[in-house]
């Protein structure tokens, strides 16, 4: 495709052959289509009808698939022939046909059917005239052939000489040609530049496709403007000190590893370093006129100093090793740069490539040979803005994450301490407890919460909701992430008192507890039930779940679908029976999953088989007075927790009370299996102790009284028969003498009257 294009353009070039030596650079991408026309020199007009058009870079590179047309983008004006045409035909040679010369363009290696053949002098013993006009005569020095031209030739092409494809291994001595301005040694085997120091008027020197290893022998050519050294074996840029007016320097296809010794070339406009071994770009200071820099097909991974090139318009970095924009960030500072290529670099594969480049290089008109449209630019800026935001956000989030991590660590440390302390010095912990609530609520409700809305202001609404309620303090952490409410540390339980928005509360389906004593959790379960009615999945980690009966406490919740008990810090999970007990006790929830495992029917049956009798015994054999007492306790307990948050409307309480009653009714045969926290239980025992003491005294008194009465009674019983006998005897004795007794009786009656 490319060659075709060239060819078509080259056809035009033929028509333009007599334009003189000038270079037209068109930046067609500019909407105003301004052409930058550059005359190589005024005196090119002194070769009327002679056109030397060259495009150094694309001249040769095109053959290698490297050729990138300077201006002709597909839509560009075809009038700007300048770029591609390359006439290597030089004046000294007949231009037989237009086609022949043209074919030289784009592939300069094509043999020009020049009549003048220069033979290697060393081979021919005598003046072996190869052509009509040029004689190459071996000089007195055996190694250098001497070139001589016929006088007509000299007159005809006084200022140019072409020695293409002459199999030269050395530069011939060119005698009597001091007026030469153009010299072409393309496609020879020259290893060293020499014997041309006398050509001081030389402007154009073409040594393309030779075997030169070092730049040398040019120090006298002060007027040289175009130096073409493509496809040689040069390792180092050197010895260009005197070429102050150099305009075009082509060093493509060499083995240069470093840009150096060019800072004095203040007139250099075009520098081609394509297909070298450069690993980075720097040392570009002083190249004040450089407009085009070709660095294709190197191994460049970073670029510096480009911002020191005030005129640079085109920079070709295709097929290098640039992987991030940071490595080429100086490009953003170049105000003149309008055309750049990055294709074939790792960076171009990135999704952010285009908009990053466009966003950072507002001055760009063309990127990878495509015009940058306003739309693209707008898109880029939008994307860049988003990216920026995202970055800020992620930064903030990572900050939060870090903070969260630290807090969790802190809570974990406290927890560990507490676990040991609980075992050793329970009093110490008790003393600590009243302190912490007084300290903690301040940061929770004060700084953290109030600070949050401000911080989250510019963030996405989704993120706000995700982060909403995230309060980080040193002793505990509360986090709402999607549908999960995570509580770390016992202080976090207080957050349940907070006024959660209806939306958040409704969204939360998973509640996870970490580093909190289960007994403390038990106390807030009624609150949890009210505040997060949709919570279906409870997770416990490091909560000191030790006994099976602790699971009883969960029965009071409204509903649980899933239960996850992390083995860490919950020894109960080591029991073989715990799952079955949970299933049995919480059977009224018909749970779906326990610790991530689906509950099967067999599990349910097994649970019932293991613990069904317990429930049966508990329900049917428990004396009623005990039933009342146990259920009453449960009810009272719920009352107590419900009454705790002050200022509650009485209506809510009664409603909830009904609810709890209903719940209790739901699983009567298990309701008696409930759990009271250790503190509460001890409290109760303490309370009962008082009563017991009273009962003991009361019973003691009663029994003593009863035994005393009994004793008296028994004593009476013992005495009674004797007493009776005595009484009867007395009576009998009294009435033994009937007459006297009658008398006595009558006496008594009369006395009474």
């Amino acid at each position: 495709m490319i060659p075709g294009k060239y060819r078509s353009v080259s056809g035009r070039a033929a028509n333009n052959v007599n334009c003189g030596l000038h270079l037209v650079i068109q930046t067609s991408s500019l909407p105003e289509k301004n052409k930058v026309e550059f005359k190589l020199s005024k005196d090119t007009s002194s070769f009327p009808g002679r056109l030397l058009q060259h495009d150094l870079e694309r001249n040769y590179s095109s053959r290698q698939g490297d050729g990138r047309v300077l201006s002709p983008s597909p839509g560009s004006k075809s009038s700007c022939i300048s770029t591609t045409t390359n006439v290597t035909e030089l004046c000294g040679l007949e231009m037989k046909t237009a086609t022949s010369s043209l074919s030289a363009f784009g592939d300069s290696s094509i043999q020009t059917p020049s009549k003048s053949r220069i033979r290697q002098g060393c081979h021919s013993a005598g003046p072996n005239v190869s052509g009509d006009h040029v004689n190459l005569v071996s000089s007195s020095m055996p190694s250098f052939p001497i070139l001589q031209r016929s006088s007509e030739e000299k007159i005809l092409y006084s200022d140019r000489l072409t020695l293409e494809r002459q199999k030269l291994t050395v530069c011939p001595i060119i005698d009597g040609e001091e007026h030469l301005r153009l010299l072409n040694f393309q496609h020879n085997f020259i290893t060293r530049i020499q014997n041309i120091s006398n050509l001081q008027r030389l402007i154009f020197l073409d040594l393309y496709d030779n075997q030169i290893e070092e730049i040398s022998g040019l120090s006298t050519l002060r007027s040289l403007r175009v130096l073409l050294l493509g496809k040689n074996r040069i390792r180092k840029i050197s010895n260009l000190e005197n070429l102050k007016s150099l305009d075009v320097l082509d060093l493509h296809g060499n083995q240069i590893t470093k840009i150096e010794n060019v800072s004095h070339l203040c007139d250099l406009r075009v520098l081609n370093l394509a297909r070298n071994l450069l690993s980075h770009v720097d040392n570009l200071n002083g190249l004040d006129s450089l407009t085009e820099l070709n660095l294709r097909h190197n191994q460049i991974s970073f670029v510096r100093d480009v911002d020191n090139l005030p005129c640079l318009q085109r920079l070709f970095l295709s097929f290098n090793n640039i992987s991030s924009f940071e490595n080429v960030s100086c490009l953003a500072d170049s105000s003149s740069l309008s055309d750049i290529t990055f294709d074939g670099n790792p960076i171009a594969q990135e999704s952010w490539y285009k908009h990053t480049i466009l966003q950072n290089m507002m001055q760009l008109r063309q990127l990878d040979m495509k015009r940058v449209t306003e739309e693209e630019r707008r898109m880029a800026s939008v994307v860049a803005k988003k990216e920026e935001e995202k970055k800020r956000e992620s930064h903030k989030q990572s900050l939060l994450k870090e903070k969260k991590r630290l807090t969790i660590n802190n809570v974990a440390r406290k927890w560990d301490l507490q676990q040991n302390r609980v075992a050793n010095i329970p009093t110490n912990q008790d003393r600590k407890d009243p302190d912490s609530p007084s300290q903690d609520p301040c940061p929770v409700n004060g700084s953290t919460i109030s600070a949050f809305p401000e911080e989250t202001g510019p963030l996405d609404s989704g993120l706000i909701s995700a982060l909403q309620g995230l309060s980080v303090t040193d002793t505990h952490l509360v986090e709402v992430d999607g549908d999960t409410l995570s509580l770390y540390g016992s202080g976090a339980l207080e957050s349940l008192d907070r006024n959660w928005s209806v939306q958040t509360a409704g969204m939360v389906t998973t509640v996870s507890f970490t580093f909190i004593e289960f007994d403390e959790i038990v106390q807030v379960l009624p609150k949890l039930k009210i505040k997060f009615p949709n919570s279906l999945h409870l997770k416990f980690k490091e909560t000191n779940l030790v006994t099976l009966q602790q699971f009883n406490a969960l029965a009071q919740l409204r509903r649980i679908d899933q239960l996850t008990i992390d083995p860490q810090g919950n020894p109960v999970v080591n029991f073989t029976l715990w799952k079955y007990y949970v299933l049995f006790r919480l059977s009224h929830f018909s749970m779906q999953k326990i610790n991530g495992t689906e509950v099967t029917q067999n599990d349910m049956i097994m649970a019932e088989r293991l613990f069904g009798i317990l429930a049966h015994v508990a329900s049917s054999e428990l004396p009623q007075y005990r039933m009342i007492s146990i259920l009453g306790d449960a009810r009272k307990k719920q009352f107590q927790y419900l009454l705790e948050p002050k200022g509650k409307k009485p209506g809510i309480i009664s409603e909830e009370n009904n609810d709890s009653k209903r719940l209790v009714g739901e699983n009567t045969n298990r309701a008696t299996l409930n759990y009271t926290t250790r503190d509460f239980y001890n409290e109760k025992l303490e309370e009962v102790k008082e009563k017991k003491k009273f009962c003991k005294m009361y019973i003691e008194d009663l029994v003593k009284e009863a035994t005393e009465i009994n004793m008296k009674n028994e004593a009476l019983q013992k005495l009674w028969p004797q007493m009776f006998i005595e009484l009867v005897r007395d009576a009998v004795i009294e009435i033994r003498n009937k007459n006297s007794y009658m008398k006595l009786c009558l006496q008594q009656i009369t006395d009474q009257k």
Partner: protein
Amino acid sequence: MLSPERLALPDYEYLAQRHVLTYMEDAVCQLLENKEDISQYGIARFFTEYFNSVCQGTHILFREFSFIQATPHNRASFLRAFWRCFRTVGKNGDLLTMKEYHCLLQLLCPDFPLELTQKAARIVLMDDATDCLMSFSDFLFAFQIQFYYSEFLESVAAIYQDLLSGKNPNTVIVPTSSSGQHRQRPALGEASMLEGVEASLFYQCLENLCDRHKYSCPPPALVKEVLSNVQRLTFYGFLVALSKHHGINQALGALPDKGDLMHDPAMDEELERLLVQVPGLVNSVTASSEASCLPSRTPSRVASPWRPLHHSRKVDVESDGSTEETDESET
């Protein structure tokens, strides 16, 4: 009812000794606890219910440990309740750790102390490796000895230690103290080589202990039987022998023989009835089963809250026997 002993003691002491006072106190205490609720149903009804439950042994369910261990009858009732409730666990063949058994105990008695469970596990495992798995029956019988005779065993442990260290704990009491000391010498020498103490000497001490011990002790005749089979024995060896002796189990009366341990047809029947409900509970919506459960229980309770328990007759027979035996062993 009026045994001749009754006349030997003043009434108050007699009542205290037979733990009648304990139950009376507890009854009043329970009454106080739920004054409002109970007064609705009638105080007389409450006392009837209370003493019935004491007779049936259901009064200890979910009670505090201090009450459960207060009387031998309570202890026997608790053992029986534990067996009845968790027989299925043993039937299922699960081997559990000491901690897990402790959890099961705590389901019936929330403040059951870990120490007792640990001691029982030590009887089964013969050492301190209390994390090992135990079968239900092993644990249950060991636990029975440990729990029912815990005070007795403490005294035994002290005696055993004294014997081991060469002291004769009964020097003051044993009439043939000189001979006891005389026999003590070689025992000490052997003790260093052989493990444990000499059985006959140990028995003498124990017999003595049983005589004066105010807590319940195993029947001395059975202790003698246990000790007569061996020459020497260690403390845990003694406990294991006690726990495996079916005579002592019978005397205690709370648990069936080892062979019948998994056998409880009445409860199995009940369990089958419960199991039938399970698939329905899973398949249909929970609400329906709950709804069916709700009216059947709640109204009946409201209507006749103190309806007699279904199993009263059967339990009566069993626990009456056990109570009598317990009382005998106590004397």
